C-alpha cells in the first residue's frame, strides 16, 4: 500500500540527516577517500523512508525502491518513457485465460548465502503468505481477487483468480507484492522478516546495514545470477524528505541522484551545478480541489460549479509549480489507459461564469475554507487560489494541517469533522493502472478516502467493471467516462499531476520509471 499520498509534510520536519557535506574547505581534505570518488559508490535519495525488509509490512515507494535492489520479481518495470515490463525471474509469463496466468521460471536463478535455487514454490509461498489473513498483510489490496498459486513443476506454476484482474500486471507483479521471497529463509525466521538485513536476497545488491532515519547501505550481491548485475560496489538509499535539502546534498557531492523541487527547475536549467544533468518527467500523482457535498454550503450544484469556474489552474501552476507542470484533466495521467485529453471546464476557468452561477444561486459573497497540507507547494497554491477566486465573490480562508490532522479530515471513524469539511486541496499517489485512481472515489469509500462524499451509481459500476475489463480500448473509454462523471458532479477541480524533475551527476546513468521515480537496480556508470 502506498504511504498516504506522498507524505511530504513540513519540509524541515522530514529534512533528514544524510552523509556530511564535504563542502567544508578544511575537512574535505581530511575526509577519508570515499568509494564514490572512484566511481564505485552510488547514492540515491528517496523521499519516503523504507522501513522494512519484509514486503508484507511495506508502506510505500521507499520500500519499492529498496526491493528493486535486493529482491527480484517475475517481471519488472522497464526504464524509459513508456510503461511496460520485461521478464526478470520469468522465462515466460502469459495470461492463459481471463482468470489464469501461467509462468515459467528461468533455471539456475539463485538465492544468496546458500539458500539454493529460486523455484515455483517460492513464488507460490510469496503470494499465498500475502493472502493468509493471519499474516495481516499491508499490501493485500494490491493482489486483488487472486485466489491461489498452483505449482506445476520446479520452475512453473499458474496464478488462479476469482475474477479477471488486469491490474495484476501493472501494480502487483512488478511492484511490492510481486517481490519473490525465499520460502526456506522466511520460514526459518518464523514467517516474517523482522531484521533489517534479510537472511537471503536475490537482487543485484544486498543489505549491509540500515541506519534508521538516515539510509540503507547496500553492497553488491556476489551471488546474483540475473542478467542485470550491479554496476556499483556500494549503493546507498539515502532518506531526505525535503527537496531543497536534497538539492543541497547533491551539490555538496553527497548524492548522485535526486528529485528536486519545481521551484528549482528554472535556476538549475540556467545555472546547473558542474557535471550535472536534469531530466523532467510527467508525474503520476494527482492534485485536485475537492468539495464536501454533504456540507450544506455545497448542496447547490451551482455553488460547486461556481468554485470550479472561479479557480484559475494556470495561475496556480505558474506560482506554486513555477510553470513547469501542466494542468491535469482528471485523476489519470497522460500515458495511462483512461487519460482524458481535456477537461470539461478549461484550466483558466471563467470568473464571469462563476459570478453568474453564484448570482443564480442567490449568493452575494461566498465564505469558504480551504484545507491544505503543511507543505510549501500546497500553501503557496492555496494563497494564489485565495487571490484568484476573490474577484468572483468567493472569500477563501486557508486552514493548514500537519499530516496527522490532514489525512483524517474526511474520515468518519475519526469524529465529526467530516461534516464541516468544506474545500480540500489534496494529492494522492498513483501506480500505472487507472483502477488504482478510481478506487478511492466510489460510494464504498465515502467517509474513508472519498471525502467529497461523491456517490454515483454509474461511476461505481464503471470502476468495478473496468477493473476486470481486458480490452484496453473499452477500458480507456470507461475510465474517461468515470472522470467526466466526477467533473460533472461539480465536486472536483483537477489541478495537475505535477512534474518530477531529477537532478543527477553525469558520472551516473540513471534509470527511471516513466513518472521519473528511480529504478535504482538499473543505474549504471556513465
Amino acid at each position, binding site marked *: 500500500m502506498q504511504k498516504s499520498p506522498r507524505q511530504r509534510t513540513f519540509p524541515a520536519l522530514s529534512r533528514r540527516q544524510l552523509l556530511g557535506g564535504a563542502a567544508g574547505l578544511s575537512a574535505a581534505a581530511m575526509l577519508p577517500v570515499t568509494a564514490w570518488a572512484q566511481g564505485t559508490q552510488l547514492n540515491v535519495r528517496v523521499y519516503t523512508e523504507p522501513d522494512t525488509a519484509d514486503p508484507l509490512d511495506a508502506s510505500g515507494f521507499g520500500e519499492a525502491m529498496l526491493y528493486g535492489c535486493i529482491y527480484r520479481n517475475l517481471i519488472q518495470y522497464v526504464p524509459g518513457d513508456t510503461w511496460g515490463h520485461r521478464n526478470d525471474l520469468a522465462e515466460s509469463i502469459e495470461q492463459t485465460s481471463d482468470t489464469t496466468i501461467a509462468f515459467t521460471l528461468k533455471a539456475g536463478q539463485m538465492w544468496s548465502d546458500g539458500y539454493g535455487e529460486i523455484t515455483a514454490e517460492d513464488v507460490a509461498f510469496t503470494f499465498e503468505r500475502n493472502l493468509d489473513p493471519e499474516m495481516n498483510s499491508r499490501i493485500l489490496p494490491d493482489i486483488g481477487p487472486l485466489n491461489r498459486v498452483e505449482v506445476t513443476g520446479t520452475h512453473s506454476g499458474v496464478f488462479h483468480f476469482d475474477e479477471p484482474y488486469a491490474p495484476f500486471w501493472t501494480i502487483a507483479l512488478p511492484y511490492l507484492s510481486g517481490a519473490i521471497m525465499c520460502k526456506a529463509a522466511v520460514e526459518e525466521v518464523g514467517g516474517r522478516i523482522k531484521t533489517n538485513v534479510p537472511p537471503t536476497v536475490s537482487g543485484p545488491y544486498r543489505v549491509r546495514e540500515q541506519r534508521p532515519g538516515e539510509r540503507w547501505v547496500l553492497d553488491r550481491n556476489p551471488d546474483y545470477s540475473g542478467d542485470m548485475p550491479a554496476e556499483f560496489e556500494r549503493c546507498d538509499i539515502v532518506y531526505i524528505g525535503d527537496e531543497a535539502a536534497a*538539492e543541497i546534498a547533491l551539490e555538496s557531492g553527497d548524492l548522485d541522484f535526486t528529485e528536486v523541487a519545481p*521551484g528549482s527547475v528554472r535556476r538549475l536549467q540556467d545555472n546547473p551545478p558542474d557535471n550535472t544533468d536534469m531530466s523532467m518527467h510527467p508525474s503520476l500523482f494527482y492534485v485536485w480541489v475537492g468539495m464536501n457535498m454533504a456540507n450544506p454550503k455545497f448542496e447547490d450544484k451551482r455553488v460547486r460549479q461556481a468554485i470550479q469556474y472561479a479557480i484559475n489552474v494556470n495561475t496556480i501552476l505558474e506560482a506554486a509549480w513555477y510553470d513547469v507542470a501542466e494542468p491535469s484533466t482528471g485523476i489519470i495521467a497522460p500515458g495511462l489507459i483512461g487519460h482524458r485529453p481535456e477537461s470539461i471546464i478549461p484550466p483558466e476557468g471563467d470568473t464571469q461564469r462563476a459570478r453568474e452561477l453564484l448570482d443564480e444561486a442567490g449568493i452575494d459573497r461566498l465564505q469558504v475554507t480551504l484545507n491544505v497540507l503543511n507543505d510549501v507547494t500546497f500553501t503557496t497554491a492555496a494563497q*494564489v487560489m485565495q487571490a484568484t477566486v476573490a474577484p468572483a465573490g468567493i472569500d477563501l480562508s486557508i486552514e493548514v494541517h500537519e499530516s496527522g*490532522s490532514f489525512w483524517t479530515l474526511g474520515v468518519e471513524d475519526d469524529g465529526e469533522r467530516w461534516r464541516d469539511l468544506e474545500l480540500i486541496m489534496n494529492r494522492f499517489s498513483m501506480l500505472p493502472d487507472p483502477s488504482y485512481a478510481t478506487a478511492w472515489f466510489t460510494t464504498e469509500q465515502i467517509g474513508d478516502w472519498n471525502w467529497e462524499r461523491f456517490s454515483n451509481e454509474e461511476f461505481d459500476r464503471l470502476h468495478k467493471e473496468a477493473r476486470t475489463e481486458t480490452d484496453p480500448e473499452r477500458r480507456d473509454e470507461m475510465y474517461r467516462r468515470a472522470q467526466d462523471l466526477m467533473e460533472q458532479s461539480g465536486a472536483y477541480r483537477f489541478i495537475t499531476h505535477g512534474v518530477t524533475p531529477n537532478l543527477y551527476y553525469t558520472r551516473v546513468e540513471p534509470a527511471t520509471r516513466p513518472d521519473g521515480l528511480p529504478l535504482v537496480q538499473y543505474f549504471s556508470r556513465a
Partner: protein
Amino acid sequence: MTAFKYTLAGRLMADPLAVMALLIIATLVGMAVFADLIAQHDPDAMNIADRFAAPSAEYWLGTDNLGRDTFSRLLQGGRIALTVGLTAVGIAGTIGLVLGMVAGFGPRWLDNALLFIFDTLRAYPTIILALALAALMPRGLITVIVVVVLTSFSEYGRVVRTQTLSLKHSEFILAERAMGASFGRIVFHHILPNVLGPFFILAAMNLPVVITIEAGMSFLGVGVPPGTPSWGTTLKDGFDHIRQTPWLIVAGGLPLILVTLGFTFLGEALRDQLDPKLRKSR
C-alpha cells in the same frame, strides 16, 4: 508616586543603553502603528514576475516567493508581534501576579500545590508544549496567545511569590499588621508596589521571548495561517526558498533581533534602576 516615576525616567535617560533601547522600541512600535502610512506596497499584493527580488529602490528589502514586498509585510508583522506580545504578557502577567500572591499569602498546602503546578509547567520544553497544544486548537493568533500564556505565567508566579514571601515577613509589614492594617491595605499599599518592580523587569525581558515564540510557532507552521505577514512566516518562506534568495531570511530575522535587543536592554536598565542590590554591586 509621580516623583518616583519622574526620577526613574530621569535615571533611565542618563543610561545610554536605556536610551538606545527606548529608541529601538519606539522606532519598532512607531513602524507597526503607522505601517499603512509607511508601506509603499500592499503587503498582500502578489507579483509573480518580480518574485525573489533583491533589495532595491522599489522593494526596500526585496520580495518573497509570490513577489510580495518584504518590507511592507514586516511592518504588518510588527503589528502581529506587538499584539501577541502585549496581550500574552498582559494575561500571563496578571495570572502570574494573582497566583503568585495567593501562593505567597495562602496556606502552606496551597502554596505547595501552586508551586508544583509552576514547576510542572516549567518542565516542558516550551516549543514542544506549543507544538502539542497547537495541534489541539484551531490555527490562529488566539491559539498562539493561549500557548504563550500557558508556558509563561508560571515564571511570573514564581517571581511574585518569592517577592511576596520575603515581604510578608519583613518588619514593616509585621508592624503594619500589628497596628491592625487590613489585608487589602497590606496587599495594595505595601506588597503590590514592591512586587511590581521585579514584575515589570520580568515583563520587559519576557516580551521579546513571547514574540520569539510566536515567530517560532509560525516558523514551524503551527502559528498564524499561511499568507499572514508574521515575522515567523517570513522566516519560514526564507528557509523554504533559501536557495532562491538569501534576503528573506536576512530581512525576516532583523526585526526579531532588534525587538529582543531593545527589550533586553530596557530590562537590564530597569533592573539596574529598580533592583538596589544589583545596583550596589555594579
